[in-house]
């Protein structure tokens, strides 16, 4: 293991400085929302499918589509767009705060 000067160290898991900490928090929150909803729903569906054929997940109609099909085919892509937009809003706010602090103003 080598010694690295502290000021040049970049590590996603050990962010330093207020700005990078804020950035990594937003990133991890976005990834959590992305992973849990996408793969969590499939896991739920698989479990329900094993223990309870014909549950509300697959029987319930939503916009004419079976709920699970609607959720995966239409809600998830929409959810990805929402996550991306929220991520951008978060980073925008963070960078505005950062440039205010640096320059004393923000235009």
């Amino acid at each position, binding site marked *: 293991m080598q010694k690295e000067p502290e000021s040049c160290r970049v590590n996603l898991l050990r962010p330093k400085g207020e700005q990078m900490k804020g950035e990594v928090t937003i990133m991890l929150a976005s*990834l959590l929302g992305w992973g849990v909803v996408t793969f969590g729903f499939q896991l739920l*569906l698989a479990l329900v499918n094993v223990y309870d054929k014909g549950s509300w997940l697959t029987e319930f109609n939503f916009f004419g*589509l079976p709920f699970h*099909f609607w959720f995966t*085919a239409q809600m998830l892509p*929409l959810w990805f767009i929402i996550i991306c937009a929220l991520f951008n809003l978060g*980073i925008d706010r963070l*960078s505005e705060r950062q440039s205010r602090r640096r320059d004393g103003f923000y235009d």
Partner: protein
Amino acid sequence: MTDTGQKLVPMLFVFGVLLLFVIAGLLYKTRESSEYGVSGRYTGRIGGGAAIASNWMSAASFLGIAGLIYLYGYSALAYVIGWTGGYVLLLVLLAGQLRRFGKYTAPDFIGERYESNAARLISAAISIAITLIYSIAQFKGIGILFAWLIGIDYSSGVILGACILMGYIVISGSLGVARSQKLQYSVLIVTFILPLMFLAKRLGYFWIMPQFGYGTAIADLSREFNINMASPFVHSGPFHWTALCFTLMLGTAGLPHVLSRFYTVSNVRDARWSVVWGLFFIALIYWSAPAYAVFGRLIEARGGINLTPEAARAMADNVVVRTALLGGLPQWLVGMLAAGAVSAAFFNVAGLLMTGAASISYDIYYRLVNPRASEGRRMKLAKGATLLLAALVLLGSLKPPGLIAEIAAVAFALAGNTIFPAFLLGIWWSGTTRMGVICGMLTGVLVTFAQPLLGGVLPLVNTLFPLTASALCGAPLVLAIMIVVSRFSEPPSMEIRRFLADEVHGNLQ
């Protein structure tokens, strides 16, 4: 296809649309060509989004996804989710930082970040392999369409289509045709959705938004004919579904020709927002694609057409155009659909071949072989490389090894196992070394092709690293190898670490 012989009206549409792009491009003519294959400047977030979307749209999106859903129902939604969810990874983990790093192609980034010609060479070779595999999938789409248009067999169709494509690339190149990606995207979305609305109306479903209208068709299929397209995990279990979906996501975030799109927007903030628009434009197509598959099944069931599984698989990539034909759409609408599909495949291949040729002329020839080569010489080499790559792709596509989307998925798996980990660690861990990335990328290549190479000897490989879905287990393995090897090898130079800390991560703007 259901009929043979020449289709005059659709043919006019296909060539008309291609001509339209040439004329529009000549009118624009604000080309900033470079050997990177990134041409044109786009202002604004929506324009950047349209560029991302039109660059992304391919025969796999236009034809392939519907074909897979037609065959496998819910299981095939892994493709829809993989190819949209990957953009979240791309935006959250890489987009802003890559833009600030300022390298235009994957091999260029890897070569500079890891300060290694060997790493540059390996990533250039991987980029070329991705280009070849992905283009084979596109050529299959082109071949199917031209075979149907002219009324000839598939092999002649693919040869003819390739000749027309190369002619198109050469003509647009020599005339200096600009790629108007907003126009391209508009054409793609209209040619995909308008025929679908007509189809829904003809079949008596909610046609204003066929994206919702097809829900009733799913219910009718299961009630009248006992065909349940929505039942989950019938054709592949939850593990395989997840592995495939995850692989396509990582691949999306690591695909070289997608990464280079971030340089066409003027600043980092607009680059980030253009991803949101791009994803929305892509989702518009993916929300609609299942409708073609479901309507296709329904029309067949009502018409008493009962295909064997083999026959269904053989025609699945045609399902979009075939459904339009069986649904009795007027010739001009079918022509429109075919024109959209041809242009999606054409522009995708053009972009891919340019990325692949740039890897040869810039990353391999200029950076490694002859650093004193003039720009003219490099451009010449890039043109020759484009032709060579196209010829190789043509050979590979004469006997296509699978369905369009499946072939494309292998290219995504390769990108997800090699380029994505190299980018992720390169940006987010300053301790990643050149030995680490080289060992990691080579492992990634091995993992991607583990099933055909080792599957016969070690049955476990077939479960863990299926050819189209190898990155769920593969990418973490590659990341682990990169980290371990980096710990025990010579650390990166002070300059690159300082650059990462100050330039890439120092400022969010």
